[in-house]
């Protein structure tokens, strides 16, 4: 596995993503839900909202990197607010 050049930061990153995916899969099986229509005017399930959250968070982090440039961990606070908004209204 050394050829993939693992480091703890990237390993933790992928572990978090993987555990999120597993959690949401288990949730979807244990507690099936009906899709809901939010502010985007399209039907979304929890999985869709997770995807929107992750993709948006990537851009939030890049934006923080470009605009603020320091204290990258604080970008995660913006991401969490964004995640809460997505799960509440989308």
């Amino acid at each position, binding site marked *: 596995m*050394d*050829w*993939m*050049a*693992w*480091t703890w*930061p*990237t390993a933790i990153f*992928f572990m978090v993503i993987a555990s999120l995916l597993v959690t949401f899969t288990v949730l979807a099986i244990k507690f*099936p839900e009906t899709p809901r229509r939010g502010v*985007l*005017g*399209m*039907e979304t399930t929890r999985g869709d909202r997770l*995807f*929107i959250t992750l*993709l948006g968070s*990537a*851009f939030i982090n*890049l*934006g923080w*990197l*470009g605009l603020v*440039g320091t204290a*990258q961990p604080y970008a995660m606070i913006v991401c969490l607010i964004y995640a809460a908004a997505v799960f509440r209204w989308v």
Partner: protein
Amino acid sequence: MTQRPDNRAWLLMLPAMSVLGIVGLVPLIAVFNYAFFDIFTLQSRFWVSTEWFAELVGTPDLYAALGRSLLFSTLVVLVQFPLGIAIALMIPRGRLAGSLVLMLVAIPMVVPWNLIPMIWLNLLHPTYGTVAQMFDAIGFDFDYKFNAVHTYALLVTVDTWHWIGLVVILAYSGLSAIPPSYYQAARIDGASRAQVFWHIQLPKIRPVLLMALLLRVIDSLMIYVEAFGINAGGPMGATAFLSLELGEEINAFNYGPAAARSVLYFLLVLSVAWLFRVAMQRETQ
């Protein structure tokens, strides 16, 4: 009580999923990891944290290249869709004739990528190029090397020649799926040819056109071999698309920055694909 879908079918997907995992997911993860290194060989790598990403998003180069790529994709769509639909409408409905025309328009799609710039540069060769001689005959000074507008025109022409078949075939398949009763009803109501197109044919082929749009947008964002072979991003970087700048980084052995770029492009393509999914979902509702 609603019936739960039978999820055992997913087991049959397992072989395909594992192949996709090996060829798609694993390299993606590796590239993501490389993006945080100053890396030349695996033995000589230095952790640089988010330096490459900061450099990329902090300089205007990336946005300029993004703008050029979007301009190219827009031109490609604006040219290829009206043209592709027009050709699809003109294809004879007979079985043999229709198949022959479809085969004809599909031929450029099987030409190997690296041959395409060679074919076109030969056509434009000043001494023996057919197209160059035609331009000479009408006194048109076509200069794809140093005139950015001409380079764009050439690249869009080449891309159209290469990929118009895809749009034609998809539009044609959409048109073939329209039940004859729609046309009969239109004839009874005395609808004109234009009305049939705008109110029956176009709405009916919208879903396949969306699919074609997704494929064409993503493929045109990835254009590399043709653009590099024809003018290598010139003149003065006017056609240095995202993919060409990425190729340049790889050729210069800057694997770290190249990996960071790849991650950015991946996010970009993922966003585009997601937007199309949303559009298609709305289409079916």
